[in-house]
């Protein structure tokens, strides 16, 4: 029987601020899980610390609320112990691109088959609005005593250089589009990264919903707002690296991703920037090394005999060490 969004709802009070972009991300994630016909007990959601960190508590699925910046290594450990789990990790931009950024980079080069969603609002909300690593230089959001003194991280470009095999950006208020991205990300074979632009109505008064939808720049003719965000598929962009592409074609694709990753301001692309399923997942690499890793992963192994003695037979190793 197909599940619905409501089957992934955990009935506890949600204490995010009214109007928070997180609500969109949450409901989109719940409906994506339902639409993919997953069961709550198939899914494990890991999170870090901050507003985004509370997300797993609102989802009826295994929910592991970890340390600031660390959801990825927890998630990777669980996934490698049991590759049958559907693992999703969520972070904030401070969580995932600040304190935990090294885990993100190394997750890229491993390509463990999981989905990583970063709630990107430019501020540290739960500590009252300090600048996060994605806030641009010179921007002064309302809680900052002075304009931001740091340049911003470019999450898309960072992901690309780290070797992430699925790179996308969504917008929390374009929920239909975001759901498609989440579904693609979850289905992607390998490490999938989704940067979600998410206005913080309480602390980020610069990158607001009005900013993304361009309410400050009306079309001179129609007098309608001209949205800053635009969908990559609407301009005919194809993100997929195919197995039969030449090296030059792949490089051209990569160059295009880099170019798009720097687009900001009046035009902000959302959608899938890059997808490459021709890279072995970490699990596949382990299976090559360990022979029966996928069929007999760590969490599923028989480690003792029925009498409680060790199942591992180390006789051969002891012979190697014998004198």
């Amino acid at each position, binding site marked *: 029987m197909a599940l619905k969004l409501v089957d992934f709802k955990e009935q*506890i009070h949600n204490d995010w601020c009214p109007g928070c972009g997180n609500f969109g991300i949450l409901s989109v994630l719940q409906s994506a899980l339902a639409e993919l016909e997953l069961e*709550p*007990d*198939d899914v494990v959601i*890991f999170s870090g*610390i901050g507003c985004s960190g*509370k997300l*797993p*508590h609102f989802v*009826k699925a*295994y*929910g*592991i*609320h*970890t*340390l600031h910046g*660390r959801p990825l*290594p*927890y998630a*990777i*450990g*669980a*996934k*490698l*112990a*049991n590759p*049958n*789990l559907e693992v999703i990790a969520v972070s904030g931009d401070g969580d995932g691109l600040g304190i935990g950024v*090294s*885990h993100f980079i*190394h997750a890229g080069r491993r390509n463990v088959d999981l989905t990583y969603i970063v709630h990107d609002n430019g501020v540290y909300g739960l500590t009252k609005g300090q600048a996060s690593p994605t806030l641009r230089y010179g921007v002064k959001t309302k809680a900052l005593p002075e304009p931001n003194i740091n340049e911003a991280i470019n999450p898309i470009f960072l992901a690309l250089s780290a070797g992430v095999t699925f790179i996308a950006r969504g917008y929390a208020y374009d929920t239909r589009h975001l759901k498609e991205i989440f579904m693609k990300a979850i289905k992607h074979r390998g490490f999938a990264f989704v940067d979600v632009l998410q206005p913080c109505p309480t602390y980020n008064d610069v990158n607001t919903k009005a900013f993304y939808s361009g309410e400050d720049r009306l079309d001179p003719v129609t007098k309608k707002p001209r949205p800053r965000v635009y969908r990559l598929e609407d301009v005919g962009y194809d993100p997929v690296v195919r197995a039969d592409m030449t090296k030059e074609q792949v490089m051209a694709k990569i160059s295009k991703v880099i170019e798009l990753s720097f687009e900001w301001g009046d035009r902000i692309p959302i959608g899938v920037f890059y997808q490459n399923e021709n890279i072995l997942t970490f699990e596949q690499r*382990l299976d090559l*090394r*360990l*022979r*029966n*890793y996928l069929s*007999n*992963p*760590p*969490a599923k*192994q*028989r*480690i*003792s*005999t029925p009498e*409680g*003695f*060790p*199942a*591992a*037979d*180390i*006789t*051969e*190793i*002891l012979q190697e*060490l*014998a*004198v």
Partner: protein
Amino acid sequence: MSATACWGMVEQQAVKSLVNNLTYMIGGQQGSGVDTSANIFAKACGLAGLHIYGKREYHSNIKGMHSYFQLKISDKPVRSLKSRVDLLASFDEETVAVHYGELVEGGGLLYDPKVLDRKIEAIPTLDKVVKRRLLKRLEERGLNPTIGSLIEECKASGVRTYPIPYDDILGEISRASGKNISELARMINVLAVASSLALLELDLAFLEQAIKSVFRGKAKVVDENIEGARVAYEYVKKRFSSSYPYKLKSQPRGKLILLTGNEAIALGKLVGGCRFQSYYPITPAADESVFLEAHAVFRLNGGDESASIVVFQTEDELAALTSATGAALAGARAATSTSGPGFSVMVEGLGWAGMNEVPVVVTLYQRGGPSTGLPTRHEQGDLRFALHAGHGEFPRIVIASGDIEEAFYDAARAFNYAERYQTLVIHLVDKALANSSQTVTLDPSLVKIERGDLIGEEKVAEIKAAGGEYKRFEFTPTGISPRVRLGTKGCVYWASGDEHDEFGHISENPENRVMMMDKRMRKLELVEEEVPLDERVRYYGREDAKYKVVSWGSTKGAILDALDELRVEGVEVGFLQVKMLCPLPSKHIAKILEGSKVIDVEMNYSGQLGGLITEKTGIEISNYIVKYNGRPMFQDEVYQALRSVVEGTAPKRRVLTLGA
């Protein structure tokens, strides 16, 4: 460094048997095959049915600095080293300069005659303090500042010296094999071993077998080295026949294996069911993970299927501990290994595991601290840190192994503790244990696997059928709640580093907070009630002994051997080895120690265990014997320090200082 015999040693020397009772040292530049030569030597002795205990000393360096291996060989089991050396095989001048003073009267020195003219001043890697001391000494005696003078000094103090012209021997091999000398030069280490064994008159066949074993799978290297070994062996036999009184004689072989502490712990983990090991490279822990990776696929009892362990090298130690924690949540037995600096990085993950009752094991190989400290040297300075690391209060179990055999069983047992009590277990070991080699017997059938209250979907269905709901952190009388693997059908749960309710959802409710704290901490009381006493403390000696030593970890061997020596002299001293440091079995410790004079022996500055015992039992430590120069305790220095305590001449705190 003193060339005069230590107090108490002269008498010993006179009665010492010279057959199968040898302290051997082999040294040279790091990267020149010192380890390999020691392995071959130890293996040859082991194959001859002899027992071995040896330690590896090296710099934090890849090539060029001085390193050495010191071994004790005996026909009986050995567990510690004495500071003085009976036979020193050197490949280079620095080994002579650093160690010649450690040789006993009547001992032997093998050296390359080309080092004779080398100026001490010109040895670039020689520690400047040692250099100054040697130069001063030679100047005072009016001797040339060369290695040759040191060798003359050896001779004068009754050491037999054996020039081994490695280049000539290589030349001979070169003529026979047609290979050029520079190609063969890397086998000087094997020539030194062969020369040593020729002096000791151990049958060459054992050496050949050892070479085959150590270079297993490299037929060409085996042939080359065996040929070289033969030439060197014959060379020494012909020139120095029967000139050296120490001998090694083979005896019937038992079922011994020769392994390091790193390897013993790796094997304990495999047997104990560990199937996920994460690590970030660090000395002296990494060898364990590398050994596991090299043996990642292994057989299973009673079946043709194979099993495997995932060895996961992470970007840092935080990822190491947190990924192991994730694997444990998924249901695998999971561990990580590190040393002090890495453990410092892991700290925030310890609290999360404690808060969320995750069975994860951290093997902590202590080395000299603080900071980078002495990266390749020994210390037991992290006891207090292991006990207290992390903010807030959470239950943890801290255990420490006294020797390589214990480390094997403890490594396996750590997972039983972790799963039974659903919490973090820190297994404390140290550099001395990690990098020692010993002949031991290991019996995997002595290991039992107990997974505690780990339930599956059938049990979850039962709970639901009975009208209940699965709650990961359910309040129970023991504090232990049924645990499911992530992905178990029929339920979900949450976990959070925030204080949480029975379901795992965040809760700041004050009553819930008290109940949850009590629930978690109560598990430590359960440990006290359930874990057998001999897994927590061991007492050696007479219960009525007036003096009792307390210690923990790898000091065990040196202490036991020192006590044996004292016993021969009619002095009874007991030894309380503490194996479980948290929860500390204070009542039992108090019972054993009450009414005795307590001597705390530890490899750290402040006597951390001594302080802990006083804190928990009120028992005052009479004497502290501590060491923190980075070199493990020798049997003879422990013996002398204890003897002076018994004689009433010891200061309250004595600092031991031997070792190069």
